[in-house]
């Protein structure tokens, strides 16, 4: 709050300058990892305190934290960004990716990508991710419906139609699981 007052309305510019400093700090110390980067978190906090809508700072700040070995910190930082910017698709998208790739928690990845899909500007590949994840977490019928919708969508290009057909065949070939439909 004090930093925002001191910025006198130039808080976005101040956030940009602190962000440049954060990037430089990370760049200078990245080779020292797994050594601690004590200034990384305070610099990131200052950046987003000055501009709570600095989406790129949340996205790349979380990446820096993860590379620096702070997995929980990275996830918390992304979630803090989402709470402050609930209408921006990039943050729930990155949280979903974090759960999928790093924590391998597929139900949570599915939950976050479902949120992403509802937001304006969300990437067109999100429905495919969701369809695949529905199959992976055992929601076979839902996955089949989603893949069918992708296949029947006239805007889907031939490459993804082929993927949709393969996924449908794979799902039809697999055994229906107990709690298949959510």
């Amino acid at each position: 709050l004090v930093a925002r007052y001191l910025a006198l309305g130039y808080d976005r510019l101040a956030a940009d300058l602190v962000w440049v400093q954060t990037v430089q700090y990370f760049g200078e110390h990245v080779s020292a990892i797994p050594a601690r980067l004590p200034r990384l978190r305070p610099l990131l906090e200052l950046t987003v305190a000055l501009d709570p809508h600095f989406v790129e700072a949340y996205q790349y700040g979380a990446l820096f934290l993860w590379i620096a070995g702070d997995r929980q910190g990275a996830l918390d930082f992304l979630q803090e960004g989402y709470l402050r910017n609930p209408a921006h698709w990039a943050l729930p998208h990155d949280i979903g990716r974090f759960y999928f790739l790093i924590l391998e928690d597929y139900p949570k990845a599915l939950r976050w990508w479902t949120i992403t899909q509802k937001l304006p500007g969300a990437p067109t590949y999100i429905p495919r991710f969701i369809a695949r994840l529905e199959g992976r977490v055992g929601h076979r019928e839902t996955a089949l419906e989603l893949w069918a919708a992708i296949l029947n969508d006239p805007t889907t290009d031939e490459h993804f139609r082929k993927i949709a057909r393969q996924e449908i065949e794979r799902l039809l070939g697999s055994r229906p699981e107990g709690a298949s439909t959510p």
Partner: protein
Amino acid sequence: VAKVLAIALNTFRETVRDKILYTLLVFAFAMIGAAAIFVQLSVRAEGRMVKDLGLAAISLIGTLMAIFVGITLVYKEVDRRTIYTIVAKPVRRSQFILGKYLGLLITLAVNVAAMAVGLLALGRVLEGQWQWVLLPGIWLIYVELTLVTALAVLFSAFTTPVLSATFTLCLFVIGRLSRDLVTLLPKLAGAGLRGVAFTLYYLLPNLQMFDIKGQVVAGQLPDPGWMVGATAYGLLYILFILAGTTIIFERRDFK
């Protein structure tokens, strides 16, 4: 009107000869140009940085121009005693104040336009397209500058340049924080102080009205109602200040 315009054009010619104006303009272009360097040091926020830095340069340097040229506008005439030759002519003091003020507004408009062209050109080079969406933001920066100029001219009518600069700068800071302060004060103080805070909030200029930088940098066109409202607010406030300046100046004895 002819007399006001004559004074305005004369003031414009006078202010464009002011060296401080060129120094500040060089700083503004240096700041806008620095954006091209900063983008190399950042990650994924390049477009935003160029626009943030450019708009901040226009606002910051424009404010310094408004203050440093505005505070000497009337004072110089009195100090050099050229005011005697003007008040001896059939020119009302209100016309003199208005002419001086409009002259400085023309100077500011030329400078803001030059900085805006610089910013748009840099955006075109770095991002490959003209960022016309920034224009509403630049317009409201200009309206804010006209209000700051009116404050500087007000103080210039009755005190020294140093005090004028101090007072104008204080009001600029308060104006930039007024909305934040009004949300903070009720939490800290009792009912009496709360009343004072709200009265001050409505009396002092609310410069945050003119800040839509975040919105235009994000590529969003502002609400036309907001643009009209903020411009009308600025205009009304300026009329109020200029009326005050004229009253003070009318009462001054130049003997």
